[in-house]
């Protein structure tokens, strides 16, 4: 090859613009990334794997919320309730019908999507802050339903779930369940990336950018707003079901409003309207408490620890860190980690001659 292709992205037609991988190297990078991840159970301990599994599960849910918030411009403060609904639905389906867990998880996703569509009916007519308030109500109504529906959730004592199993292969340990989550993460993220290349995905973005122009161009606003609510709930349901079969126990109290806010935080921190950002935001949110914890542990026993009672109030410190992270990102990096990542990539792309 006499001439190397020019650096950067030069799209000459729509087909190139819409391709999922802008260059051959980005495709290779993805394959390498998947390979590296597939090898992690061989080197990492159970604790690290647990963190990775959590990041994967939260990433799927955050991606769903990002489709709603980042792509369609609707806000939901009830995502954790849908996440919880997916968790309980999968556990309940398995106990009630004895279907294999591998089938229960997608079914739970579909069931949650249906519930999401019910609560999304106001979404078809409301926008912005009104929808935020409606989903806030959905959060409390669903939480109340969880506490009351003993047959569904096990009530206050919680519900025990079965591990994921497929053809006799039982994913009852971190090393095995990691692959289940990895498969789902790849599936859901590729699905989302592809969704955004279709007419439906572009319609969602059009609704966000200017709903009036979108309507003039023949996009049915009510349909797409409800659809995006349904998709977000579907993702939340899948993630919740995975969560249930990972922890092997689901309890009612877990899916409170703070959890919902954490999902929103992931989306904000990762970057509104960025597919890969959802995973980065999830990683940030999962690792933040760990960092706070280890910082508190490093200070344990010292004068600061005694004066501020760090050890006893670690959960409050975590909450404060979450709140502070959300505010700081909004003020200083409103486009989230995804933009930071793009800047880093751009810097290296033109490395020696970046100016």
């Amino acid at each position, binding site marked *: 090859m006499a001439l190397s292709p020019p650096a950067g992205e030069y799209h000459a037609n729509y087909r190139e613009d819409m391709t999922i991988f802008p260059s051959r190297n980005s495709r290779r990078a993805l394959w390498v990334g998947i390979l590296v991840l597939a090898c992690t159970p061989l080197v990492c301990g159970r604790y690290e794997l647990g963190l990775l599994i959590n990041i994967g599960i939260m990433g799927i849910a955050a991606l769903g919320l990002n489709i709603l918030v980042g792509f369609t411009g609707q806000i939901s403060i009830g995502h954790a309730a849908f996440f919880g609904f997916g968790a309980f639905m999968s556990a309940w389906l398995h106990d009630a019908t004895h279907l294999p867990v591998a089938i229960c998880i997608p079914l739970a996703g579909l069931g949650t999507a249906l519930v999401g569509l019910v609560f999304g009916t106001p979404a078809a007519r409301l*926008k912005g802050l*009104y929808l935020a308030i409606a989903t806030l109500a959905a959060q409390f109504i669903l939480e109340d339903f969880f506490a009351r529906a003993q047959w569904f959730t096990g009530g206050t004592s919680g519900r025990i779930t079965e591990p994921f199993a497929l053809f006799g292969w039982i994913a009852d340990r971190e090393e095995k369940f990691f692959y289940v989550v990895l498969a789902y993460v790849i599936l859901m993220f590729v699905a989302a990336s592809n969704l955004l290349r279709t007419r439906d995905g572009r319609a969602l973005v059009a609704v966000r950018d200017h709903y009036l122009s979108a309507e003039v161009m023949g996009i049915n606003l009510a349909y797409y707003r409800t659809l995006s609510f349904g998709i977000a709930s579907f993702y939340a349901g899948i993630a919740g079901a995975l969560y249930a079969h990972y922890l092997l126990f689901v309890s009612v109290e877990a899916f409170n409003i703070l959890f919902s806010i954490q999902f929103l935080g992931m989306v904000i921190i990762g970057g509104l309207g960025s597919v890969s950002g959802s995973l980065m935001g999830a990683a940030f949110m999962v690792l933040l408490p760990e960092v706070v914890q280890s910082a508190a542990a490093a200070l344990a026993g010292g004068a600061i620890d005694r004066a501020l009672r760090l050890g006893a109030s670690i959960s409050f410190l975590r*909450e404060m860190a979450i709140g502070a992270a959300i*505010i700081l990102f909004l003020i200083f990096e409103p486009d989230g980690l995804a933009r930071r990542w793009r800047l880093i990539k751009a810097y290296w792309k033109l490395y020696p001659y970046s100016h």
Partner: protein
Amino acid sequence: MDWSLLLPLILNGLIVGALYGVVAMSFVLIYKASQVVNFAQGEFLLVGAWVCWWLLSEFHLPFWAGFLMTLAFMTLFGIILQVVVLRPLIGEPVISVIMATIGLGIFFQALMKWIFGVFAKPFPPIFPTDRVLILGLQIQTAYLLSLGISVLIMFGFAWFFTASKHGLAMRATAFDQQVAQSLGISVPRVFAMSWAISALVSAVAGVVVGIVNGVSSALSFYGIKVFPAVILGGLDSVVGAVLGGLIVGVLENLAQYVDAEWLHWGNMYTVAPFYALILILLIKPYGLFGTRAIERV
């Protein structure tokens, strides 16, 4: 129907509802002036109540002194929040602003838990008598005080918005920021003032609830109960906020009564306002008195 049971419930609902009304008013104040939906309204109550409790029980100040110092502190607190957190977000999409107030909410809630602990702490006794007898009903003195203060604040708001220079400036800003600016009104100052007043008024409500029930993080739930009230009344109507608060207060007590008598579902006291909220949003999203300019699709 058992009237001897129902009457105190309705009365209780009206008293608590008046407090909701006060908090809803301060919520509407911020929304009207600066178009910010404040999800941290409940934390204003929480911070105000804890500060007042701290001044009273640590330094043994007389109630009026501690109360006044709390109000001064909250005024400053509101201004600082607006200047430091909300001002950089002017012009950002509504989602970012909502998220910022949510972030503020969980930050201050956790901070208060960290400083003061998770258990409810009672105020030192303030009134010589605990209860008074009115119309054959035993009523807590603090509730009477709360009702009095609520009514006082409502009239104060009415005067502020119709007669005072700053109130008129605020209304002008709410109506049209650009026109207000060209008339010589400092819009940033109006924003800061609206947050200050909102924080101050919420803190009054917080102290009153604290005197009745003790101070704990449950106070911040008032900030969430505010949503059914303001949606019912109309998001940008001060009168609607008061009415909405009263209705929600009565509604939750009636829901509890109906539940205890017939349904036996439990927890209706907390959840009923949210069912009402969804219904209102479906039927009449601009509420009873709200501006009908909400874009519906």
